[in-house]
């Protein structure tokens, strides 16, 4: 079965600084990859997804992620972080055939003024 590792439990960045959240996956077939964001007290909202094609995908709120098959990674990036980006971020990998999705443990982002 597939699995996801988010190596960073907690990251702090200054407002306006760039951001990269790491995600590594393990899956034997073509992965379907997702990033979700969970703001305090909220449910999970999809930021972006990768199914096939261009390995650099754009999402909402100015986020992007790059799929690197050779590194089994799907890192999330944002060039300039806003205070409202403070939240929990989850990476997930799914299997198309049976909708089996596995989530990482999440990375909590704190934004310093």
């Amino acid at each position: 079965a597939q699995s996801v590792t988010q190596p960073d439990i907690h990251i702090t960045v200054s407002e306006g600084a760039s951001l990269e959240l790491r995600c590594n996956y393990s899956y034997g077939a073509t992965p379907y990859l997702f990033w979700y964001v969970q703001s305090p007290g909220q449910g999970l909202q999809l930021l972006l997804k990768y199914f096939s094609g261009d390995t650099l995908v754009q999402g909402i709120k100015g986020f992007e992620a790059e799929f690197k098959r050779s590194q089994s990674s799907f890192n999330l990036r944002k060039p300039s972080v806003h205070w409202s980006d403070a939240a929990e971020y989850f990476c997930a990998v799914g299997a198309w055939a049976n909708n089996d999705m596995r989530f990482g443990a999440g990375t909590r982002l704190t934004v310093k003024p």
Partner: protein
Amino acid sequence: GAGVSQSPSNKVTEKGKDVELRCDPISGHTALYWYRQSLGQGLEFLIYFQGNSAPDKSGLPSDRFSAERTGGSVSTLTIQRTQQEDSAVYLCASSLEPRQGIEQFFGPGTRLTVL
């Protein structure tokens, strides 16, 4: 259209009592999932329903946990004889059937507190 809804949004109960949590998936979504999110933890998969197939119960932590899905739509997660360690946010998600769509749409969750 309406998203995934869950009720209640908050539930406080006493240790040993039974609780029922409800999830209304997006209309037309045949797949439904339950997750548990404990304080500071990631998402813990509990159970997965797909159409009329037998549910995948592999994530249920104990036999005190059960879930059903009536008419292929609404689902109820039941926790019997609640324990303090059951305190968590319980999230429900739905998606299209396999090979039609994999993205999961999440409800706002039910925050369960066991005193």
